[in-house]
């Protein structure tokens, strides 16, 4: 044996275990969310728990992936993410299916998180992928589904904050930035630090409208008026302006469907999984410090598996939803009805009585003998 010495009851940091009400509430949340996915005609995929490590790419998740060497010497990994797996399945096992495909999943992912961060290593994600569909329509569809999931859970005050990777990407390219300079800027924008962005640009001798635009990513408002301001602000950079135009189109469709009040603009959202190529969004609630879900468009990922097609999806974190709903006093999973204690003169008689009551739908507990 090797590794850290541990006591008999000790569990590894980050491992989770749910009992009683909490387990019931998680099942209830999952059932409601999956019924929304089914209601929009998405089909469940139960992907493998592990696959070749290269399926999951070499991006930000690579350093958090639990990988191991298989019996045949190949490098395998426990899934840190579902989207890559579903893309691979869509391009392989489902190759004969015509696009668009609407697929969903629900299950655990495993990520190594440094123990001191207080994060869990096992996370339950529920999500869907819309593969091969027309751009804006698919974007609007998955956002509408995300909003319906939150309604189905009776979660209060949730906001879908929309951004687009093309805004920052376009501005950074127009500024002639590359490599570490882009990462420095991305980090400061992701912290919404206007002075930090401005001073990073000054150090590189970048000024003018492009610099104003980059600083603007940290200060733009969130309401519908911010969309107009953004269009003006990024007029100097056609790719960024086009990206804002895409967001505006999706916002208009969602607003027409009555979802306007749930939306916010967040063009400063420049982090996240590196496979995103277009619209991105995160879902925030007032009673939880972290987002409860996230999603976006990833038009280049499927090509990695040999079946290029546009794609968009999102996921909700079951662990965070459960905590949010508990804080909001929602979905107090009703305890099960009290069981009927069944006994008899002999074990056989008791069992036979219990089976009878079970056939009539009762919740029974064998007792007595």
């Amino acid at each position, binding site marked *: 044996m090797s590794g850290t010495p541990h006591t008999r009851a000790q569990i590894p940091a980050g491992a989770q275990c749910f009992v009683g009400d909490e387990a019931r509430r998680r099942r209830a949340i999952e059932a409601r969310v999956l019924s929304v996915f089914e209601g929009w005609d998405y089909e469940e995929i139960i992907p493998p728990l592990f696959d070749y490590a290269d399926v999951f790419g070499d991006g930000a998740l690579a350093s958090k992936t639990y990988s191991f060497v298989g019996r045949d010497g190949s490098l395998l990994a426990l899934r840190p993410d579902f989207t890559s797996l579903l893309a691979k399945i869509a391009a392989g096992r489902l190759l004969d299916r015509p696009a668009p495909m609407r697929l969903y999943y629900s299950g655990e992912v495993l990520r190594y998180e440094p123990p001191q961060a207080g994060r869990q290593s096992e996370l339950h994600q529920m999500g869907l992928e819309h593969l091969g569909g027309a751009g804006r329509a698919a974007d609007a569809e998955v956002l509408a589904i995300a909003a319906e999931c939150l309604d189905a859970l009776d979660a209060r005050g949730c906001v879908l904050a929309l951004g687009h990777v093309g805004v920052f990407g376009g501005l950074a390219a127009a500024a002639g930035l590359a490599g570490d300079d882009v990462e420095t800027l991305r980090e400061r924008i992701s*912290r919404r*630090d206007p002075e930090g962005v401005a001073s990073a640009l000054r150090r590189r001798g970048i000024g003018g409208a492009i610099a104003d635009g980059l600083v603007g990513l940290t200060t733009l408002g969130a309401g519908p008026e911010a969309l107009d301001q953004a269009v003006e602000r990024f007029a100097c950079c056609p790719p960024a302006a086009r990206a804002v135009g895409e967001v505006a189109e999706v916002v208009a469709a969602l607003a027409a469907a009555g979802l306007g009040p749930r939306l916010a603009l967040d063009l400063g959202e420049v982090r996240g999984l590196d496979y995103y190529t277009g619209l991105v969004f995160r879902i925030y609630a*007032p009673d*939880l*410090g*972290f987002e409860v879900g996230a999603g976006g468009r990833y038009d280049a990922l499927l090509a990695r598996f040999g079946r290029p097609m546009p794609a968009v999806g999102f996921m909700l974190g079951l662990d965070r939803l459960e905590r949010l709903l508990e804080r909001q006093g929602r979905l107090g999973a009703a305890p099960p009805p009290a069981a009927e204690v069944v006994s008899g003169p002999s074990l056989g008689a008791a069992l036979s009585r219990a089976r009878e009551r079970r056939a009539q739908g009762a919740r029974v507990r064998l007792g007595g003998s």
Partner: protein
Amino acid sequence: MSLTVALSKGKLLSGAESLFRRAGLPFPAAEGRRLVVSAEGLRFLFVRDMDVPTYVEHGVADCGIAGRDVLLETGADVYEPLDLGFGRCRLVVAQPRGATLGRRSTIRVATRYPRVTAAHFLGRGVPTEVVTLAGSVEIAPGLGLADCIVDVVETGRTLEENGLEAVEDVAASSARLVVNRAGFHARREEVARLIEALRRAVA
């Protein structure tokens, strides 16, 4: 529900108080031992300086005031929309006056900032042993616990009194307003109003 602000009772407290007063915002009397105090629509938490980013990251506080040195060290995932302009200091490498560090292959560094220190030296390929201390870092080199230290300096007097001199800047620091990411979006109006009031007071 009112916004919750995390503050530390350390060296940033007086700057925070005068900033809140200039901004026309309530500020609690910092007397007594109560760690949670409400004042006219805001709730204040008094916590350790290194803990301010943690409270804000987890959303227990909607916002807080933390030094950039502390933000660099904790790496907390929070927004930093405003440099508040006070609490200016530098994070520096300091060593005994006249010593030469370059001779040793692995250097031992005593610090309250182990993450920043490791990133600073390892990032330049210098083999480093970090000795993490909770305070009184200045005495470590003289007692043979470390070859040098990484710590914050304002005037440099403490360094001087302990026979040390700053030889390298690691980062500049000042007080920052930090804001929880979810609250920034989900309680946008209240949070934006607070940021705006403080921004005007800083300018």
